């Protein structure tokens, strides 16, 4: 469906871009993701999928886990696609003409000129939904890939689309710089992945994961033998490349710059989706991953993400460091090859993705309440934490939802984030790792400081008065407002009826671990 969607939109956008607004293309892409999710859900059968099924010549392996998380990815992706550029004041673009349009203005006849406002509107982000479909195709191919070649192709399909997404706002110097940095460093990490894959292949002659898994379990204790050391080196380099992609410390330096430089709508995608697919890939193919390296990276991510975040005054940079810290927690849970580790990883990924999505949606909605004369970028209206000052007095509901999401991120009970951290700490304790449990507790307290700093700013009186009147906040997208309401209620009331999610995660983890 995704491939059909991409082919159709590639043909449709040039033909019908005169009539189709960016919002409509967003909605059509949303439909494609929705239908893809429906098609995956249609084949979600526990018994047959529990042992995994190889498809398309064994290049892909579908399991209950890959199928369930594919649905989750498609739902999250479709929600993010509902953030239409109008919600970021894209209409103001009409006032900013590029050199290209000045040139066209001189060239085109009056009969054509009547279409120009629409064309101008569309130029910047009209390709955004199409690129999102490309990256989603890469993501859902990656999570069920069962071969080194398909793994690499999927990662690149996902990454190339992300580089384009990052540089989509070509009028912004910071976005272009961030995109270039992302491209160069992403290219470097791809080299690591390719080198790791090549080493694995050159010393085993295998590319299929199932065969590699069997080989690794057979050689098990005889790892000292020379030729198999190269297999270990290959997996180590492959893991480094993948950790680079998810922005885990100490390979995280690109993440804050990129997340801060790109439009907020793109940051929302970058902070949640690519990580999700690579982390699921880690879960699906844990034999390919060096668990000691994961633990070291987790420790560093927790420390760097929490401590460095304290010094940030830009909201998206702060959230980037927060993301690094959360990736540390996920990697820590993932490094334990136990069913508890798997369950806590799955739960943390789920709750983190939902909370993070809610935070970015609210950030975009709060950006719409700013006076357009007070903002420096129409794509990222809120750049500094100080811009959130006094927002509670203009939009109490959104501010409270924002605060609750941040409380959840910091792990305050009884919100969903608390349970996520509790499960990870519990897993670490059950595996006798008291030191890392202590590190999680301390870093959670440290990160709470910067979350509280944002919440404090929200509730302080606005002295600059750069917010438009309450009546002006009527231009908030009702669709996004409903989504924020649902996500916030989920974050708050998860503890009242947690059984469906916990049972589903337990079932998925059990089938993945034992079958």
């Amino acid at each position, binding site marked *: 469906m995704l491939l059909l969607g991409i082919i159709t939109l590639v043909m449709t956008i040039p033909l019908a871009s005169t*009539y189709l*607004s960016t919002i409509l293309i967003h909605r059509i892409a949303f439909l494609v993701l929705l239908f893809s999710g429906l098609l995956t859900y249609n084949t979600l059968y526990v018994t047959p999928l529990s042992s995994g099924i190889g*498809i398309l010549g064994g290049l*892909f392996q579908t399991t209950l886990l890959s199928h369930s998380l594919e649905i989750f990815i498609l739902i999250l992706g479709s929600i993010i696609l509902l953030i239409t550029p109008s919600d970021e004041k894209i209409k103001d673009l009409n006032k900013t003409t590029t050199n290209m349009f000045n040139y066209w203005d001189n060239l085109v006849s009056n009969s054509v000129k009547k279409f120009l406002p629409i064309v101008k509107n569309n130029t910047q982000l009209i390709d955004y939904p199409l690129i999102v479909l490309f990256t989603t195709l890469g993501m859902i191919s990656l999570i069920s890939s069962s071969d080194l070649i398909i793994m690499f192709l999927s990662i690149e399909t996902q990454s190339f689309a992300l580089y384009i997404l990052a540089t989509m706002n070509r009028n912004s110097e910071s976005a272009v710089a961030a995109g270039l940095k992302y491209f160069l460093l992403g290219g470097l990490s791809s080299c690591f992945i390719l080198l790791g894959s090549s080493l694995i292949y050159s010393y085993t002659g295998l590319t299929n994961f199932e065969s590699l898994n069997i080989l690794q379990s057979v050689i098990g204790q005889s790892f000292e033998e020379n030729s198999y050391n190269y297999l270990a080196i290959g997996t180590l380099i492959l893991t480094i490349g993948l950790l680079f992609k998810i922005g885990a410390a100490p390979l995280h330096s690109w993440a804050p710059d990129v997340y801060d430089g790109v439009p907020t709508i793109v940051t929302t995608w970058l902070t949640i989706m690519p990580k999700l697919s690579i982390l699921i890939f880690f879960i699906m193919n844990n034999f390919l991953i060096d668990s000691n390296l994961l633990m070291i990276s987790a420790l560093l991510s927790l420390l760097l993400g929490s401590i460095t975040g304290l010094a940030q005054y830009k909201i998206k940079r702060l959230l980037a460091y927060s993301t690094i810290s959360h990736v540390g927690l996920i990697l820590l849970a993932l490094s334990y090859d136990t069913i508890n580790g798997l369950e806590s990883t799955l739960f943390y990924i789920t709750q983190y993705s939902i909370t993070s999505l809610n935070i970015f949606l609210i950030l975009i909605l709060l950006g719409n309440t700013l006076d357009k004369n007070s903002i420096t970028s129409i794509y990222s209206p809120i750049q500094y934490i100080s811009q959130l000052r006094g927002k509670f007095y203009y939009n109490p509901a959104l501010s409270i939802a924002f605060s609750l999401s941040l409380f959840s991120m910091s792990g305050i009970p009884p919100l969903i984030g608390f349970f996520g951290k509790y499960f990870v700490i519990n897993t670490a304790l059950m595996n006798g790792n008291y030191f890392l449990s202590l590190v999680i507790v301390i870093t959670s307290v440290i990160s709470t400081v910067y979350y509280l700093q944002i919440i404090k700013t929200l509730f302080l009186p606005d002295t600059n008065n750069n917010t438009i009147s309450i009546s002006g906040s009527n231009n908030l997208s009702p669709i996004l407002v409903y989504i924020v309401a649902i996500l916030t209620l989920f974050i708050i009331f998860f503890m009242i009826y947690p059984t469906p999610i916990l049972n589903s995660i337990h079932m998925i983890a059990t089938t993945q671990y034992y079958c």
Partner: protein
Amino acid sequence: MSTAEQYIRTEHPVIDSDPHFTRVVRYMRGSDVAAWGGLTVGAPAILLALERVRPGAGPKGINVALGIATAFGFMGGFLYSYQKSSLRFWGWEENARELAKNRVEMDARIAAGLEPYGKPTMDEGAQGVAARNSKYAALKFSAIPWFNTTNHKYHLAENTASKGEN
């Protein structure tokens, strides 16, 4: 791993683990066709509902968009129905009606001196490759639509075709 040889636990008898495209379409139930129609109509309806909640297009724009949404609904609806029919062939869903229909069809083909699953046009190696590529491919329809359009001998229909080749 050879996907032509994998055995999967199913709740119902397997009719054909890699049915030909035409067979899947022929065996669609009325409910599948209704779902296909429903999704074809549903896609533009969702678009209209979103437009009602948050208008974002002019009248001409919405007409074009509705056309595209209907096309996607048609494609998505077909893939959905194809999956439903395939699930019955694989024995993942209740398939008593299809089992009986298949038995009659196979018996008739064998009585007429025809190959039960159609005459293969490729050599054995190519048949294996085709089967490995298309077997259970409907599970990945969310990404790539891939159908079996060849006649091959890998069907794993151990208890259905009375004298058919398994």
